[in-house]
């Protein structure tokens, strides 16, 4: 498998949603188990073709959210629709519309790879050539066709995970709920899975990705929600989350000490602060997009006699943003 765009989605269907409506919509979603509030008034929307990350530490409530969206467990309060179907009232329609990768691969180890996919394909109502063709297509896409008649018990962890994802996609759902798809995999297998998720997204699939691998989320997700103790901490694109954690910084490398050049940079409208870092200037913006501001600042520096050797904008990684936004919550969650 490569990241060059294998075809996983045969067709995307929008269910009974009106155009422009979110594919997944949760409003005040809450789940209480006894005295434990596992999910606490979560509201979010996932649009068509989006890879939406659900981030949080172990026990944050990510799996419970996925189970509610898959209509496996009912919300205690609030509502959610998936593919236009109400998770409370239309469980079978919701499950028909989605593919779910569960936290464990959940494969029948005494059955072969083909038999596993065949059972699930038939459970979704597929028959005949359409079923056989889809199974073959998926097994070939995941490089498992040669092992189709081997029992799953003989598979490596990475092969099992790939087969589990193939199972989630066997009925060509347009919505995928993936719970920790790369956990426990070696780097090569993890990369294959990430490439595949990227391909799926490009082919129009809508993906809710639950993970605590922040590097994966940063690479794959267009937006993400960080949750802790079942509560939403923040929602946004990886860039927005980074900006919320700490502002981006324009770094201008100079051939020589900054000296008075820093003052020239400070005079540019929109600059909030300028600091020297060795032979570089670190510039922050006051309300203006740093990409827009950068040429003006560089021009000011050059006019002031500065010899510019490099210009870059640095943002905190999603991991840095996550750790900052979560603060002390991680240990509590």
């Amino acid at each position: 498998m490569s990241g060059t765009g294998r075809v996983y989605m045969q067709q995307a269907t929008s269910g009974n949603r009106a155009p422009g409506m979110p594919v997944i919509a949760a409003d005040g979603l809450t789940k209480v188990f006894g005295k434990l509030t596992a999910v606490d008034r979560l509201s979010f929307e996932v649009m068509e073709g989006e890879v939406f990350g659900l981030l949080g530490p172990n026990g944050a409530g990510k799996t419970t959210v996925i189970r509610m969206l898959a209509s496996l467990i009912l919300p205690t309060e609030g509502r959610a629709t998936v593919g236009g179907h109400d998770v409370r009232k239309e469980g079978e329609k919701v499950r028909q519309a989605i593919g779910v990768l569960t936290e464990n691969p959940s494969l029948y180890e005494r059955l072969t790879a083909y038999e596993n996919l065949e059972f699930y394909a038939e459970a979704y109502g597929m028959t005949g050539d359409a079923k056989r063709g889809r199974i073959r297509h998926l097994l070939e896409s995941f490089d498992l066709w040669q092992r189709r008649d081997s029992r799953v018990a003989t598979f490596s962890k990475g092969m099992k995970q790939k087969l589990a994802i193939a199972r989630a996609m066997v009925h060509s759902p347009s919505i995928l709920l993936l719970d920790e798809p790369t956990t426990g995999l070696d780097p090569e297998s993890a990369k294959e899975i990430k490439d595949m998720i990227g391909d799926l997204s490009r082919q129009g699939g809508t993906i809710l990705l639950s993970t605590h691998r922040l590097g994966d989320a940063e690479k794959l997700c267009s937006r993400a929600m960080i949750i802790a103790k079942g509560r939403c901490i923040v929602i946004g694109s990886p860039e927005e989350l980074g900006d919320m954690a700490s502002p981006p910084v324009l770094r201008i490398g100079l051939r020589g000490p900054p000296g008075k050049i820093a003052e020239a940079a400070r005079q540019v409208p929109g600059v909030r602060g300028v600091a020297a870092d060795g032979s570089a200037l670190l510039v922050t913006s006051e309300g203006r997009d740093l990409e827009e501001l950068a040429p003006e600042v560089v021009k000011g520096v050059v006019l002031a006699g500065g010899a510019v050797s490099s210009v870059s904008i640095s943002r905190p990684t999603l991991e840095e943003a996550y750790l900052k936004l979560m603060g002390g919550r991680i240990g509590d969650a």
Partner: protein
Amino acid sequence: MPRLGRAFLVFKKDWREISRNWQIMAPIFTVPLVFAIVIPAVMVFIPNITSGSNAIDNLQGLENFLGPLSEEIRGMTGRQVMVYVMTLYFFAPLFLIIPIMASSVIASDSFAGEKERKTIEALLTTPLSDSELILGKIAVSFVPAMVTTVIAFALYSAVVDVLALPLFGRLLLPNFSWLLLIFGLAPTVSLAAIGLTIAISARVKGFREAQQISGLLLLPVLALVFGQISGAIIFGPLVLAGMIAVFALVDAAAFYLGLRSFRREEILIRSA
């Protein structure tokens, strides 16, 4: 209403898994073999048990048991009485162990085993309804158990008749009581075992736990054996018909409880 085709999918998938698991298949093959062939063969080939004065001695103490059968055994020799009561009456309640054991072993694996192996969550994410899932799993527990029971009965009849033909000049099996036992009581007992196993499986995490608890089902069988030895009951057509009716009620109650406990949310939470 469950769609039978979809319930059959569950049946087919579970049977593929179960038939490749020797831990399940071994007891399903060996227990009937013991009851259908080994024990009656011992009676046939070890004459001391069923011949001569020893046979009469062996019947001492069973007066209460033989009393109600006095009409049936009138004029029989000691050996004939011994073979007659042992093969047609004494083994009848013991034979119920076969459907109980087979159905509860398979049902434990199908319900609790699926939770234990953590395959249940993916199964529950399919659009198969609760009733389709449960019907498929009941069928995969019931059908092999009944097939095993009927095959065991056929073998048992053959072994018994090999003994009976020279001794009585006629075949003893099948007779009406045993047909009622195999095709009336065994299915209702098997369904009761499945219903109880489903209810137990919903509350335990593993296959072994479910199997051990459902082993309690053998206690009523032992009660029937001792009840017959003491003369309290005799496995005649009337008693069998009454027991079929009682077990039909037990089935209804067990399935009511089993179906109530088969809830996606409960299963997921308890398997966590």
